């Protein structure tokens, strides 16, 4: 018999604000707010930045702060919030049995150093020896560590004292999904009681655009409404998110109340050359459907904003029927890649706890139906990767 899986702590930071309360409050006004996006800093690109994060609250040591770049700061702060809410922060015994699983990328190159090297080598034909010398002079050892994906988890262990275990999944959107899925499956199967799972993404950097722009999905110039965007419709967003995933009996024994129940995470990959994301998603929906009540439910879509995927996912979302209240959260906080799915699971948990959904973000899209005055106790989360990977999760209200 599979054990119940509870969410007992959430840390969430995005362009919408810091913490679950601020995030939920920001969403209540309805529609999108200008301050959630930034069209100037990296123009002609659009980003959803995290502004003015005071990292010292969760990363008190200056040395630790310096050892990390922004995406690690976002993650370490979100992890601190989640541990605090779950009553684990500072509790050595509990931290010793906490398994850390993250899904993240790396990078955050020193853009100025790269520019210097490119300028210096511009007229050099035999670039090899000069490149070696420049790299030895320009690269900072601490920066290398701040660029390694596994050091994201390593730094969280160091800052917060999480010592149970530490694993890092890589691979864009699916990395965030599978980090959650493996924690969920292991709790269900009694392969661990307590997990700290999450991700972070920093959109306010140009080196990441150098990887994404050649893929032909990054938006530039004037933006269309979210669900109507062309293929080049993806705007990246900075997000830090962590959840404490706990076996229900373990939480009960230590007297901790659930925020919500995690009831399913299905993750797979369609061979997009051979089949389609929609077919796979329909199979996933058929698997979860027997768990759905005959009542309005939320659907937080992790759509990345690229037109062809938006259209295909809308086709799938239409098949969910009249009870579905869809919200494309990427319109609000951008596409957080590895962090996108965990962030929507976090938001789904907050909604399930409140037993309500926030107003439509893109009211012009008919599937973003109003949920005003409706009781929402089940929230689905979709995640189709911009390049690969399809996932569907279910979060449910649980009486605390």
């Amino acid at each position, binding site marked *: 018999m599979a054990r119940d899986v509870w969410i007992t702590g959430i840390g969430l930071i995005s362009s919408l604000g810091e913490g679950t309360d601020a995030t939920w409050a920001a969403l209540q006004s309805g529609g999108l707010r200008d301050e959630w996006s930034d069209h100037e800093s990296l123009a002609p690109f659009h980003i959803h930045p995290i502004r003015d994060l005071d990292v010292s609250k969760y990363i008190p040591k200056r040395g630790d702060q310096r050892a990390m770049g922004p995406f690690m700061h976002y993650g370490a702060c979100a992890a601190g919030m989640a541990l605090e809410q779950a009553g684990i922060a500072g509790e050595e015994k509990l931290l010793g049995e906490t398994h850390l699983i993250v899904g993240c*990328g790396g990078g955050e190159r020193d853009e100025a150093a790269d520019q210097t090297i490119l300028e210096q080598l511009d007229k050099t034909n035999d670039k090899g020896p000069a490149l070696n010398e420049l790299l*030895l002079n320009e690269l900072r050892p601490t920066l290398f560590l701040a660029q*390694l994906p596994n050091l994201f988890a*390593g730094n969280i262990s*160091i800052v917060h004292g999480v*010592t149970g275990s530490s694993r890092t999944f890589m691979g864009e959107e699916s990395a965030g999904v599978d980090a959650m899925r493996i924690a969920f499956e292991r709790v269900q199967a009694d392969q661990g009681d307590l997990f700290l799972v999450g991700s972070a993404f920093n959109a306010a950097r*140009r080196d990441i655009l150098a990887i994404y722009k050649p893929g032909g999905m990054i938006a530039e110039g004037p933006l269309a409404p979210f669900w109507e965007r062309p293929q080049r419709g993806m705007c990246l967003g900075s997000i830090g998110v962590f959840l404490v995933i706990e076996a229900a009996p373990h939480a009960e024994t230590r007297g901790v109340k659930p925020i919500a129940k995690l009831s399913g995470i299905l*993750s797979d990959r369609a061979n997009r050359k051979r089949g389609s994301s929609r077919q796979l998603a329909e199979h996933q929906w058929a698997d979860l459907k027997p768990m759905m009540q005959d009542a309005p439910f939320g659907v937080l879509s992790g759509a990345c904003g690229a037109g062809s995927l938006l259209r295909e996912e809308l086709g799938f979302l239409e098949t969910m029927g009249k009870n579905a209240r869809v919200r494309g959260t990427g319109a609000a906080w951008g596409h957080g890649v590895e962090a996108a799915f965990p962030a929507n699971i976090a938001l789904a948990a907050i909604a399930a706890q409140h037993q309500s959904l926030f107003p439509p973000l893109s009211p012009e899209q008919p599937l973003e139906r109003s949920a005003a005055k409706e009781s929402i106790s089940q929230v689905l989360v979709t995640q189709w990767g911009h390049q690969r990977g399809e996932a569907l999760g279910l979060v449910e209200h649980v009486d605390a």
Partner: protein
Amino acid sequence: MSKKAVAITGIGMITSLGQGKEENWAKLSGGQSGIHRLTRFSIDNMRTTVGGSVDFVDIENLSAPALSHAMARLAILEALGESGLVQDGDFPGQLFLAAPPVEQEWTQRFEFAENVPGDGRSYTDILANMPEDREDLHDDFLYGTIADRLADEFGTQGSPITLSTACASGATAIQLGVEAIRRGSCKAALSVGTDGSMHPESLVRFSLLSALSTDNEDPAATAKPFSVNRGGFVMAEGAAALILEDVDAAKARGATILGYVRGCGEAADTFHRTRSDPSGNAIIRCLESALSDAGMSAADIDYINAHGTGTPENDKMECLAIENVFGEHAAKTPVSSNKSMIGHTLTAAGAIEAAFSLLTLKHQTLPPTINHKEPDPAIPLDVVPNEARTANVKSIMSNSFGFGGQNVCLILSSEPD
């Protein structure tokens, strides 16, 4: 209480010693080194000029992801051939891939710069002049692409997982497979470690951390694990693939079982980003949890395949942990380092060394720690110095410790219980 063992029915590998397990075992057990002077790129101005790069795989556009993919493929083909576990052209299980973090490299950045008219070379200039129809520049450098391409080719089931626990990654790939089979998520798993990330910047980065040996004179003698004059690790490349199966399922299809994963242990260190807790706390917990998971005691272990990087810090800490966990058995249990011959294959190391451990079981021969001319008096272990040794070996501990405090230990055995 021990948990259920998981069968291994196929292995494949490639290292600087060569391609395939037979060639690799012949050379490894013969005490031969794969470390050589680097020729792939200019070594002018480099502090370290030797490594265990794999230079004999044909690749059109060489990059870390391209070579990592090619080596993983070759290792998987060999492992699948041995296990015979294919149904309707597909692998009936999940893929767990330990792969290096990738990003665009200097080849790509130079190309970007060439596209910019005028003198500007900032990322703003690069982005303004970047082609949008170059899917290769995007997909080739995503973290999930190698696993995606392997999943397409070998028909693995579900969402493939790409992971990193730094130098413990290969062992984590095996641990994830063991867990998935134990909880009934799948009957089989393809656990792979691959690393083809030797390029100028990666060499410089490890140099700047003072992690690499600069003893460049005789490449084959550079890696000196457990010696008093050891000066760091030697960067290297390679890949290994292991086919893991539910024991009953493997027996039911009449598969030849090469060995069993009896237990896996892990623990995270919070002491420092590149150094372990001087008390050895985390690695001791890691070794103990692997033994506990296997339901075994230190006395049941016949040989330890060490992490043995050859850095002053690692070898000292590993010895401390072994002495702590093995007590009176520490001095009697042989411990050797494959890295003395193949270098440190980083992300792939845990998988390659698990594969070598299975070959150790098969041949009942302990591979040596070569270049062990000046023993470290602070390391009173039997390191199987310089020459292989025949031995009765039934159960092996294989250690992997990573930067960032991620430690994994596997217990491999010729018997399931």
